[in-house]
């Protein structure tokens, strides 16, 4: 799942659960996840 796909799903789920106030936190978490996945210590199955 890409981060954008995850974020859209998470925002929809938060709305469904009556937690729209989660939006800025989920967006911030998405930014942190993007940074984490871009780090050079991640595994790469091609290497």
């Amino acid at each position, binding site marked *: 799942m890409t981060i954008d796909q995850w974020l859209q799903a998470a925002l929809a789920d938060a709305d469904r659960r009556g937690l729209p106030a989660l939006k800025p936190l989920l967006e911030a978490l998405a930014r942190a996840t993007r940074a*984490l996945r871009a780090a050079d210590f991640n595994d790469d199955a091609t290497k």
Partner: protein
Amino acid sequence: MHMNTALTIEEFGRKLRAREITSEQMTEQCLQRIEADNARLNTFILVLADQARRQAREADREIVSGHDRGPLHGAPISIKDLIDIRGVPTTAASRVREGHIAERDAPSITHLRQAGAVVVGKTNLHEFAFGTTSEDSAFGPVRNPHDPSRSPGGSSGGSAASIVAGMALASVGTDTGGSIRIPAAACGTVGLKPSHGEVSIDGVVPMSRTFDHVGPLAQTVADACLVYHALLGDSGAIAPAPMPVSGLRLAVPRKYFCDILDDEVRAQFDASLERLREAGARVDDIEIHHAADIVPVYVHISFADAATYHAATLETMAERYTEPVRLRLEAGRYVQAEDYVRALAGREVLRREVDAALAQHDALVLPTMPIAAPLIGANTVMVSGSEQPVRNMMLRLTQLFNVTGHPALAVPCGSTSAGLPCSMQLVGCRMQTDALLRVALACESYIAGTPSPRSGLGGPMSGGPAGGGISGGGTGLMSGGGLSMGSGGRMSGIDGCSIMEKVAAKTEPELEVRSLKSEV
């Protein structure tokens, strides 16, 4: 506002053994300070007045009979209300914990009792330790004794405030991202996060068991050392002799850690470094190459850990959480497993980089917090002309060492023009907390720019090692008469311990992420 002129634990111990003070007198002095200032500062959730008096009288009887338990014997201390004390609630500053009574002491409390410490009460905190300001508490916000309009830091805010306000000689807190060192910095005390795994976290309400630590807050490095050893069950240990400053090898990780600093905090940090250089320490610059990955690693592990612990109660009693804490916990439920595993890998990378930075140095030195204590209710703070989220700023320089497990110590480092404390952080090798403490003992007075807090030790203002420091003179501590906290008072109740009346939920501050791009 009374500010602490109390004895240090070392000074109290000397006077106790010289029969110049009793534990009962010292304990009464602390209870008087609680009675006088707790309503304004909101420092304690529970005051154990009668228990403390009984413990103090027993400590005095033991001293008279020749039974000396060691340096903490008879010393009144406070405990963060996240740690179990048998027979009383562990509230974690949350309505979620209503009705809880601890069945047994946490091992750390057992060790303190064996060391003869007198527990005066349980201190207020950020709900479930999930915050840096101690504002979001079911018992209302803790206030900074230096300026009650400001936060004491968090999450162990009540612990730090209790020391500065003279309500306890030391305190025990917990630290998951900086929750001992941040309030120590905001209030101007010493705060020690030991090496990960050294002090038991059993009997402590977890925030993230991966990153949780238990440790002391105290007036001096020597006192922190005494409480740290007592927490380990080593109650007879005395503070070690400091090593000479001359020849110490210190390293400053400037990139990232000194990029965003309040101007006055930076000036105090630089001045402390200069005093250390003048005293003969070698100060090198080093780099933590993956520093930019600290926040993503920390967030993915700590948020997921916290969400796991709270998953059931988020479903059944969500309304009992303060809104900011509830939302952070809910966000943690969305962390994906693959990202948690990536963060664990990042943790190892960061650990190796800090290990490498310390390979040629006795300690890393950096500011503890980029800002002084923020105003209560502030979501953002201006730092050198740039608006920054308060939470991000407060965690920025401490959370790495929760990720890596290295011991880290906050030491007062001057103050701003408004009189708010600044703090320097020293970091040592993993599982070598005592070595870090020896470095800190040597550096403490140079960092502070004041005479050594340890009698007989030199400092920058005392003309060198033989110059003599302050000797902990008269404080008026002997004047304490009997303090009545009997029936009908706010702190009365069964066995003299009652929970403060819960204040109505405060107006929730807007989450900082609503107004600024945040690091979560």
